[in-house]
């Protein structure tokens, strides 16, 4: 960015230069400290338009009055004024401006000087992206900016993390920000872009910075700018990294085979107790070998030399269970780790070569990058090859044009984690399979592996078998399925070719005007291939294959006219533009079964067609936009206004067009006279913005239309009404945003930061208003509902120690906000809207838990106890039927019930953290840079579905958490885990506050160690720069429960997914 304005500056001087008389002054401009000559430094004779520019070697020549003053200025350096005083040789050292206040930043539809920006923008530069060994650039945003939450939980390499900027602006639709890639909205996967090609990622957070994106901007904008050439000598850079990935999230602690049998026996025995069958009979039955015995219910007897009827014994006095003491060894003890066939040391390789350079009339940046990222779980891979060319020409002063083109080919394979409890989900399967079942088939008597003719082990699908004339029972958990074998035998792959093209022509005319025509198009060809094998799973026995092929073509067309005028202290910038956007998506899907030749997953190799369809979608947006900025004295006072009129095809023609706008102001307090005495303040700016924009993310393309779905009755044409009736009055959600920001630099710029207060008030929120199922409809989208996200952001960096050989800097960011619903649909106002574990009520947040209130465990009998739903009817009677069998009043007056259906639902906190952010200490020790990024989140709760499954009071064959060892067993025992009882799973394991857990965490997200060789040392090698580094990502996570990732999802759900990778990489970067 600096370079662009540098070129501007240079041109300004070149063309404004007039030959002066007087004396001839020469000299060299160098950088203070390093002595490096500085080219392109502007030199102006004060009070005149006379000037010159330094050359490549930093030297300059100009004629100036001998009593004049020279002003040396260069972006990124502090301006210097030197009196000529008759000298003909003046050498100057420019000091780097640590802040680069005149840095030009990318803003909506243009650029702006950072000092005069009135909006809230966080920038992440290429240096900090390079520190992160991530395949998806968005993952590198985690922890970098205040106000930004990034979900980097997934172990699937290349997957797009979810991002939320300043809270959740929508309840039912998308709260995801708009991604803008090199000036055009981008709806492809971010993993198509090589992170190393990215120059900067700017996060636009408030209305002043996002209003020009109109109906798409209210969730914030992530603006990605790729690298371009610098107008200097050719620079070639090569980078190679090699890394390794291992499982970053440990498994939950679960009980082993020896603990498991007696526990499950207890569950069975307790379920067998009836009024006619007392505990002694039930215990005998549970130990026995009938179908009501424990072996029948578990199927497998894993103990060496123990007969089925002898596995679990019990104390005849207390009926407490214990494992037969002779059960000391396991038949297949080495084959109980279901993760072992799929866990690996993943490898991550990157190679990248880029070249950039330029002249006065052209610049270029070109790169080729290769990434091969293999995660800890086998068959989770992401490979990318990408090539970029960014070429710009300025053949004449009045015209320039250029093209930025990226092509990438991406391939990936992944695990089936579509469903939290899908059989084919390897994580679900491995986590939940009981600790007595082997992965591979064994001789059920001797424990030996059973091998096929080639000597390979065979997957144990848990079938009942007959071996040596003896019948052995089947596995009772997920029988016939094998999530691990299915993961390895099935295929979930995709290939994606993408092209992102950004072309422009720019005309400069009438001195102050510029017309820029942008044409951007993205092509996304996607082919996914899903194969389900013949041996086990949903594809068995036939084998089946799906192909999903899609083509997305998105173009954005912009005409931008700008007027830029500087009159002494007044800077005026006016922009008007028109933009049109079209997204065309077509998909073809085919699904066949009946595999003919093994190993060929193409549809031709299958016999029967299960499904085949295609469709085409169009989405169009058109906008007219304008912005005016006025700045006095380089940002001492700045005022800005922007406006956009947007039309979208998603809405009915009468509702289609909307107006979006913002106003902003900035005040450089430090430039005021009264601040002069406060020398310790280097920079102080107050900014404020207010504006309105919209959100149409996630709204269906045809949301306003009342639709029927094609559903033929055999061959007769038939249509079924959609259960979601369209709403012709639907319009986008709007957000009114206020931002107040204070930016400051103090103590010689050693302490820098900004503090922002924001208030995002969303209104006309679209609610998928739940309709009574008895109407035949499920929901209808309606614009009713308001909420706000209001909070504070702080971002601070301090150069705490800064000596020659050791420096220590600390960056800290923190965000806290309140999410509050202020208006709900009329019919939901009183009772709120219940959605899953949440209830939305006015005054509450989007993620306020509304759950059965867990009370504890009845010490008398081990029942789960919930607070009784004590709501009363008009006559003062309980609405719930009181029964002494399942309700009681405790000594302290608390009324509890063991019947989950009579449990009280109540508020139970929220999944939104109280405070989150990151702490990034960085050190420099004798040229070695070390930085550590710690992400933290304090407060909020997570709902741990994975743990709840492991805590079931029954479920024969399913794994159990070690916490189940604390179950109730004896009257009088005080515990929080109910008794084991297979007949009471619904009662004891009902969704309740029992499964909530503190979501606070501290994650060591990244450690980076780098060493730059000094240019002097490299001189003999004829290379300009050499850097070696090591980076580690997701090093450690400290949370309330081992195995749990509390930041897996914004709504607090914890479920069975491929946990994140811990990646360590080593890299070398060479510059020629």
């Amino acid at each position, binding site marked *: 960015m600096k370079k662009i304005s540098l070129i501007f500056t240079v041109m300004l001087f070149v063309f404004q230069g007039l030959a002066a008389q007087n004396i001839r002054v020469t000299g060299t401009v160098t950088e203070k400290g390093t002595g490096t000559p500085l080219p392109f430094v502007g030199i102006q004779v004060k009070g005149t338009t006379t000037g010159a520019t330094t050359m490549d070697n930093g030297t300059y020549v100009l004629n100036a009055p001998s009593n004049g003053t020279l002003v040396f200025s260069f972006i990124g350096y502090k301006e210097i004024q030197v009196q000529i005083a008759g000298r003909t040789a003046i050498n100057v050292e420019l000091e780097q401006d640590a802040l680069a206040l005149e840095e030009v930043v990318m803003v909506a539809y243009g650029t702006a000087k950072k000092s005069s920006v009135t909006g809230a923008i966080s920038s992440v530069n290429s240096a900090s992206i390079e520190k992160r060994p991530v395949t998806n650039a968005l993952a590198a945003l985690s922890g970098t900016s205040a106000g930004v939450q990034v979900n980097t939980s997934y172990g699937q390499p290349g997957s797009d993390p979810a991002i939320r900027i300043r809270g959740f602006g929508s309840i039912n639709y998308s709260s995801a920000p708009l991604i803008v890639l090199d000036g055009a909205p981008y709806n492809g996967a971010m993993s198509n872009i090589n992170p190393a090609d990215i120059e900067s990622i700017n996060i636009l957070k408030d209305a002043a910075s996002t209003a020009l994106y109109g109906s798409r901007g209210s969730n914030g904008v992530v603006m990605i700018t790729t690298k371009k050439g610098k107008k200097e000598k050719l620079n070639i850079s090569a980078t190679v990294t090699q890394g390794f990935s291992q499982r970053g999230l440990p498994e939950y602690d679960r009980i082993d085979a020896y603990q498991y049998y007696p526990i499950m026996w207890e569950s069975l025995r307790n*379920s*067998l107790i009836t009024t006619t069958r007392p505990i002694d009979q039930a215990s005998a039955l549970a130990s026995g070998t*009938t*179908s*009501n015995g424990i072996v029948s219910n578990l199927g497998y007897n894993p103990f060496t030399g123990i007969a089925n009827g002898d596995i679990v014994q019990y104390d005849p006095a207390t009926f407490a269970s214990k494992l037969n003491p002779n059960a000391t060894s396991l038949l297949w003890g080495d084959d109980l780790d279901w993760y072992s066939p799929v866990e690996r040391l993943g490898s991550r390789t990157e190679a990248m070569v880029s070249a950039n350079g330029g002249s006065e009339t052209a610049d270029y940046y070109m790169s080729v990058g290769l990434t091969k990222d293999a995660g800890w779980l086998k068959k989770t891979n992401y490979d990318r090859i990408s090539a970029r060319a960014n070429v710009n020409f300025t053949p*004449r002063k009045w*015209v320039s*044009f250029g093209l930025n083109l990226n092509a990438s080919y991406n391939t990936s394979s992944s695990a089936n984690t579509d469903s939290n409890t899908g059989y084919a989900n390897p994580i679900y399967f491995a986590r939940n399979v009981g600790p007595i079942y082997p992965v591979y088939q064994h001789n059920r008597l001797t424990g030996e592996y059973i091998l096929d003719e080639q000597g390979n082990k065979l997957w144990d699908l848990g*079938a*009942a078998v007959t071996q040596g004339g003896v019948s052995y029972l089947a596995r*009772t*958990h997920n*029988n*016939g399925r094998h999530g691990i074998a299915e993961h390895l035998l099935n295929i979930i792959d995709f290939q994606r070719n993408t092209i992102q093209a950004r072309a*422009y022509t720019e005309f400069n005319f009438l001195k102050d005007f510029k017309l820029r025509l942008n044409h951007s198009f993205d092509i996304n060809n996607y082919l996914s291939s899903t194969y389900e094998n013949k041996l086990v799973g*949903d594809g068995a*026995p*036939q084998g089946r294959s799906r192909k999903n092929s899609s083509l997305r073509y998105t173009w954005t*067309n912009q*005409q931008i006219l700008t007027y830029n005028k500087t009159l002494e202290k007044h800077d005026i910038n006016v922009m008007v533009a028109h933009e*049109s956007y079209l997204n065309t998506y077509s998909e073809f899907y085919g699904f066949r079964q009946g595999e003919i030749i093994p190993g060929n997953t193409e549809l031709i190799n299958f016999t029967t067609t*299960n*499904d085949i*369809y295609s469709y085409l*979608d169009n989405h*169009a947006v058109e906008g007219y936009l304008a912005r005016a900025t006025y700045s006095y004295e380089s940002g001492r006072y700045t005022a800005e206004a922007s406006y956009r009129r947007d039309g979208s*095809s998603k809405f009915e*023609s009468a509702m289609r067009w909307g107006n979006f706008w913002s106003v902003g102001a900035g005040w450089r307090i430090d430039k005021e006279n009264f601040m002069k005495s406060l020398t310790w303040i280097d920079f102080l700016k107050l900014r404020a913005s207010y504006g309105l924009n919209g959100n149409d993310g996630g709204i269906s*393309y*045809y949301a306003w*239309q009342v*639709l*029927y*779905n*094609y*559903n*033929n*009755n*055999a061959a*007769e*044409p*038939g*249509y*079924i*009404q959609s*259960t979601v009736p369209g709403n012709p009055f639907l319009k986008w959600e709007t957000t009114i945003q206020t931002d107040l920001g204070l930016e400051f630099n103090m103590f010689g710029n050693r302490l820098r930061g900004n503090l922002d207060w924001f208030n995002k008030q969303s209104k006309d929120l679209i609610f998928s208003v*739940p309709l*009574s*199922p*008895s*109407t*035949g*409809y499920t929901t209808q989208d309606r614009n009713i509902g308001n909420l706000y996200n209001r909070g504070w952001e702080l971002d601070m960096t301090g150069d705490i120690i800064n000596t020659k050989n050791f420096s220590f800097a600390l960056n800290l960011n923190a965000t806290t906000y309140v999410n509050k619903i202020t208006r709900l649909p009329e*019919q939901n106002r009183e*009772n709120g809207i*219940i959605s899953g574990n949440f209830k939305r009520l006015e005054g509450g947040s989007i993620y306020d838990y509304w759950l059965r209130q867990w009370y504890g465990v009845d010490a008398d009998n081990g029942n789960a106890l919930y607070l009784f739903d004590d709501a009363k009817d008009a006559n003062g009677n309980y609405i*719930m039927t009181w029964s002494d069998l399942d309700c009681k009043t405790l000594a302290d007056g608390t009324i509890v019930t063991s019947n989950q259906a*009579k449990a009280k639902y109540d508020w139970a906190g929220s999944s939104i953290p109280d405070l989150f952010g990151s702490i990034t200490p960085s050190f420099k020790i004798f040229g070695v840079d070390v930085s550590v990024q710690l992400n933290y989140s304090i407060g909020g709760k997570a709902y741990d579905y994975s743990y709840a499954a492991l805590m079931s009071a029954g479920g*024969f064959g399913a794994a159990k958490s070690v916490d189940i060892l604390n179950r109730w067993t004896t009257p009088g025992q005080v515990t929080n885990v109910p008794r084991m009882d297979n007949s009471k799973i*619904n009662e004891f394991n009902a969704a309740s506050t029992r499964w909530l857990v503190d979501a606070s965490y501290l994650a060591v997200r990244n450690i980076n160690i780098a060493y730059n060789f000094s240019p002097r040392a490299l001189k003999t090698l004829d290379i300009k720069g050499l850097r070696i580094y090591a980076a580690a990502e997701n090093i450690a996570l400290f949370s309330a429960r081992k195995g749990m990732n509390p930041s897996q999802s914004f709504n607090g759900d914890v479920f069975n997914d491929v946990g994140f990778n811990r990646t360590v990489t080593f890299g070398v970067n060479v510059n020629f």
Partner: protein
Amino acid sequence: MKKIKLYILALAAGVLLVPQSCNKEYLETAPTDQLSASLVFNSLTGAWGAINGVHRTMYIQYNSSQSNGGFAGMYLNLDMMGTDIVFNTTVNGWFRSTYQWTDHRNDRSTLVLWWNNLYRLVSNVNQIITQIDAIAGPEAEKNAVKGQALAYRAWAHFMLVQLYADRYVPGGANSQPGVPYMEEITFEGKARNTVAEVYTKINADLTAALTALEGYTRANKSHINKSVVQAMQAQVALVQGNWDKAATSANAARQGYSFMSAAQHLEGYSKQANPENLWASYVQEDQTMYFYSFYAYMSNNFNSTAIRQSPKSITKVLYDKIAATDVRRGFWYPNAVADKMPFIQSNGVRYNYMSSKFQAVSTSDSRGDFPWIRVAEMYLIEAEALARQTGKEEQAKDVLFLLAKNRDPQYVRSANTGQALIDEILTQRRIELWGEGRNWTDLKRLNLPLVRPTAANAGQGAHVESYAIKVNVPAGGTIWTWKIPKSEIDTNPNLDQNPE
């Protein structure tokens, strides 16, 4: 010259980049995989499409659940709650908590979502009923569409009121809360009509349907014609204890239908062409049913985990009541393990008394045309209704004889009288309709307890207590009434949940 070239270049670049929109049509888009409602009800062709869509709703998958495969899934769930289908193992979880009588009392379970599914069908037919009159076209054809829609509306409410309300007490006031009888297109949930009101409206709709369908010749058996409406009237009257109407309607409904041949018995109750089908879907090849098909759980030939590892059996008690010469006896295998019969997948297991009554299209194709109403049921309704009327026992025996003799050539006309005759008819009904979803509603209709015969070990044609959990449920009580889904309770202030 050089300058001109540059101008041309700049112009060309500029032209490439000029706006590509600015016309009014630019923001008009329409889906290609859906159809605008305005196109559906602007012609009779469109209206036929709408009623055909309703026929299709009989066999689409609901709620993305394998246990919600069309209304065959509903009938299967109902039978799972009955006396006569046995789980031999708990290795496969599908339908297990229905079998254990927990899901129908859990307002968040998938099972109670039959409420949604039935009302969804009602909403589709209400669109037709309200809009058909305004469409131009021959009256007879409009009546054919409307009559079917009315019949569907009655049928759906009939199922709803049987599940979600306390039982209809013949001769009683039946003022207990029923279900909302939905007759209009609305976004507002309605209050519950009383059970009596619901039955009044059901009968009114069926009567109107009968009139509208007078003279209608249907294209295939997935459509509803007069005899299907009469069959529905018979079913309704049976629940209401309106014996005379039940008998006459059943008799009218069965006219023109013949019994299956012995060979057709072995076709697996999955072909629309079955002569006994009064009303059945036709599922063509590309309408793959995957694992949500009824036949993915109840056939013995389809390759699904449920069938391989958890084939269902009949109770020995009921099996033993089937005469040795009865063709239906062949559906079940009391010695399946020893005899290695019937056919199963190579890695499947057999349990004694397992069934082969139902057959999917093939091992890899779970489709089947589930019979919504078979003529056999009409004989059984007629016989039962006659037997319950004084002085009509002989007629009852005649009707029963027609069916029983077809099934068992050795069958001798019943000598039973009184309750013994009724019991014989009901036993025939349990045998004949095994797996077809009538058992549980029969228990409720007749206010009988659930009594599941048990055995200590699995695979003996009896329930295992630790698998079934519920083996005895006394007649009456709230447990016989399903919970209304929480989604309805949460959204419909006019309606109260069924008590605990």
